[in-house]
């Protein structure tokens, strides 16, 4: 028994187990000793990586969900359909994990429901809370067909399907609002956030960068699942996703440059201080390098080129959010902040939890259904694989018969 267990224990699995155990230990520390004992936060530096990474990055990295939903259902680019389910799953898990992360960071997590009945419409965080709540519901509905299909509940699926367009449009709107609002949260701190990052356009930048990183995440996740499940890669699709990513990075690069000029902050790019270096690193790694790489067809067509560029976009995105929450704040706070070990291990534990849940859900639920259809197009439609789209066609056919 034990030898069998050890044999199955790959490197990745062991790392996962270690990270989850460390995360669990830190969780105990956090909820028995409070934030002081478990974090390096202080009155001068009240927000750390649990907000900066677990929440700000978490929400952004899940942006592939609404981007792809808009492409497939609103813009009717049906060819992206094969990758929509794994993307929705990523987003769905992403938002659950963001909520989990928030529970660690909130001092009084048991009171989180207060936001439902105690309103302050002037607070950006109030708006974000509502959007995230509603969008999580939307994601549940968007992901529900996968579960319903597994349990062969086709009637419910059809009902859901009939409402799918309004649901998806509401989801895109909610995402637009809260993705940008995470940037708006920092608008109220004009003196605190270093001027390389503080700009009235923060909401717009947050939104555009979320779409670009959403695309990068779609690419990354396709690669990882192609490895884990030994399935083929949808290269032509991913190349198109990469092109959308390039477009968004371009828009971001142009807007951020114009903004620096507009605010007369260009000279700050050459002041020798920490903020400057971090800014350059973020921009070169996350915007310029992937822009150069991905704008070349050769790189886009090449599996590892595409993968590497996506990873760069993601790293750059994370650096941007961390710079805004940490680097850009240290100057004003007059205090530096380095996350504590428990802060790191909770964050890593949450990320691991995400990977593990994705793996098992994808393994036991029809997340990659379309793959079956693609491999075996001649096979008669087995009811097991009557996807949402199948229902769609039926409905349409009926409409035409009626005419």
């Amino acid at each position, binding site marked *: 028994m034990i030898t069998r267990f050890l044999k199955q224990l790959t490197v990745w699995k062991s790392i996962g187990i270690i990270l989850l155990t460390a995360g669990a230990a830190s969780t105990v520390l956090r909820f028995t000793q409070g934030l002081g004992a478990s974090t390096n936060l202080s009155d001068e530096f009240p927000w750390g990586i649990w907000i900066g990474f677990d929440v700000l990055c978490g929400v952004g990295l899940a942006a592939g969900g609404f981007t792809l939903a808009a492409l497939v259902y609103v813009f009717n680019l049906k060819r992206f359909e094969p990758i929509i389910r794994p993307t929705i799953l990523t987003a769905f898990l992403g938002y659950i994990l963001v909520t989990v992360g928030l529970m660690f960071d909130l001092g009084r997590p048991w009171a989180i429901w207060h936001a439902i009945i*105690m309103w302050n419409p002037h607070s950006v965080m109030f708006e974000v809370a509502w959007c995230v709540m509603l969008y999580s519901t939307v994601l549940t509905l968007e992901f529900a067909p996968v579960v319903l299909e597994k349990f062969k509940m086709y009637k419910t699926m059809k009902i859901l399907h009939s409402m799918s367009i309004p649901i998806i449009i509401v989801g895109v709107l909610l995402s637009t609002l809260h993705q940008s609002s995470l940037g708006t949260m920092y*608008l109220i701190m004009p003196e605190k956030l270093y001027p390389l990052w503080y700009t009235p356009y923060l909401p717009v930048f947050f939104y555009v960068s979320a779409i670009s990183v959403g695309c990068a995440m779609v690419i990354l996740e396709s690669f990882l699942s192609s490895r884990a499940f030994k399935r083929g890669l949808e290269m032509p699709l991913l190349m198109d996703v990469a092109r959308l990513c390039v477009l968004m990075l371009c828009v971001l690069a142009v807007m951020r440059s114009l903004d620096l000029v507009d605010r007369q902050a260009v000279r700050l790019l050459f002041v020798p201080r920490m903020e400057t270096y971090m800014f350059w690193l973020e921009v070169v790694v996350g915007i310029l390098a992937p822009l150069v790489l991905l704008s070349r067809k050769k790189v886009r067509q090449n599996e590892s080129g595409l993968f590497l560029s996506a990873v760069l976009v993601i790293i750059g995105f994370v650096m941007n959010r961390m710079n805004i929450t940490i680097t850009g704040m240290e100057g004003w706070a007059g205090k530096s902040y380095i996350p504590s070990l428990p802060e790191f291990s909770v964050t890593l534990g949450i990320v691991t939890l995400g990977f593990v849940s994705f793996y098992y859900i994808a393994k036991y639920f029809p997340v990659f259904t379309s793959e079956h259809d693609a491999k075996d197009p001649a096979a008669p439609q087995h009811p097991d694989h009557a996807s949402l789209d199948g229902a769609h066609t039926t409905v349409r056919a009926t409409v035409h018969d009626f005419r």
Partner: protein
Amino acid sequence: MIQKKAMLIDITMCIGCNACQKACKVQNHLSDVEEKKLSPTAYTALETFDKYPDVFVRRMCQHCEDPTCASVCPVGALTKTPEGPVVYAVDKCIGCRYCMQSCPFQVPRYDWTSINPRIYKCILCTDLVKQGLPTACSEACPTGATKFGNRDELLTEAYERMKAEPGKYVDKIYGQKEVGGTSILYLSGVPFEQLGFKTTLQTTPLPALTWNVLEKIPNVVAIGGTFLYGIWWITNRRDEVKQYEEQMKKNGQDHDH
């Protein structure tokens, strides 16, 4: 209309006796050890400076006219009362610390050691003020360095003091204009920036910065919703037309046979 209450702190008159902190601790039932910094048990504290050994600066919540903390709190746990104090309701607070993150004066303190934490800050003795009484710290001040009164009257008095003794004060009442004005006003003989005051703060209230964006949400929803629905209608209509045409063609062919 209720007169807005305020306190005028004349730094030149402060002798550093710490009577204000002591009185505050009694009034708010806080541990009575002397503290040099704001903390969960010190709503006010005297700051000293190596460069100016006989200058003491009272730190405390500024009770902004349009408080940033009240604007950002997602559950409305912080509110500005009509009399002037910015007060806190622990039974609403979720502990997100957005108030600490955004307060332009770095005032709210958090109970980092507790697993049932809350925010601590000066509440301008709201219970006393509501009854028309002065704050505990101003009552305790032996020199009149902290004076309680109506904001308008205290501002006039500050100007009079500056006029009466030219050269004694720097030409500024700190708190008159900062982030749209605060209920705590300072007079000083030493330039404020050398005493750790943030003198670069904007003179309009900070909450407008986020409200200007939040205000647009209904428009984003209305325009965005219409736009997305329109796109969907057009792109799907195209499909339907194509299908319909194909169907017609097929029907036509069937007919020919």
